């Protein structure tokens, strides 16, 4: 029997993979893709518990998350274009003006 627990654990694995990608990768585009993985993990959780509780609100929240993820992708890719124009590279550690 596949319950919400299985989905929660799958979404945790996806979340941690995305987290590792965000922390470890040097390329800005790949970091953004890992962020999308994290959004997907959150959605998977909401869907699993929406099914478990038979409550549609989880699905509506997931729609809002997808919308925010789309907005984030548009802004992030705009930032990549700006970074490429400024530094001529997409490597994140090149952008260290603020001491990051």
């Amino acid at each position, binding site marked *: 029997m596949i319950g919400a627990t299985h989905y929660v654990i799958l979404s945790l694995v996806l979340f941690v993979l995305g987290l590792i990608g965000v922390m470890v990768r040097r390329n800005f585009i*790949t970091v953004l893709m890992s962020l999308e993985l994290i959004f997907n993990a959150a959605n998977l959780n909401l869907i699993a518990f929406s099914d478990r509780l038979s409550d549609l609100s989880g699905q509506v929240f997931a729609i809002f998350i997808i919308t925010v993820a789309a907005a984030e*992708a548009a802004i992030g890719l705009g930032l990549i274009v700006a970074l490429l124009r400024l530094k001529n590279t997409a490597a994140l550690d090149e952008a260290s003006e603020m001491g990051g």
Partner: protein
Amino acid sequence: MEFLTAHFVEIMFYTLAALTVASAVGVVAFRNPVHSAISLLASFLFVAALFVMRHAEFLAAVQVLVYAGGIMVLFLFVIMLVNVKRLDPEQVFLSGKAPAAVAAGVLLGALIAFGYLAGSLGPVGPGPEALRMVDGAVAGNTEAVGWLLYRQYLVPFEVVSVVLLVAMIGAIIFGRRDAGLEEGGGRMEQ
């Protein structure tokens, strides 16, 4: 054959979960950003299939249309627009990655323990039929989500449209050629 039909849901879940995790590993591990993007596309599609298994048919369609259609095209467009050589630094990973990975692993263990508890305790709803109800009558999942979205969640829905507008304006401003972002900075001259 009987084993297959008796355990169809389990087999589907474990297959899809394995494929999702494998393609997620691919996103993090591939050196070439184009390969990462294709791997991400695969993981979006597998997650959409998992949504269908949890009675979220409308969301699965939205996932395919918005993520696999829109966001992936945006990613691939930017990758193709700029030279892949410039996007692909010699060194793929940041230095000092090992502590971060270990910390993430420890976090995973703690989260799995918590997630197991969260998933196995707590109340259980009346069943998947409730996910298709509209006004007490059984309709479709899409109709039910729309009913809820345009009635109970109307204000958040309108606020999200403002978020999208702000994102659009922000993306346009970042993408402008005269945004003062060229090397040397154009701001000081004026």
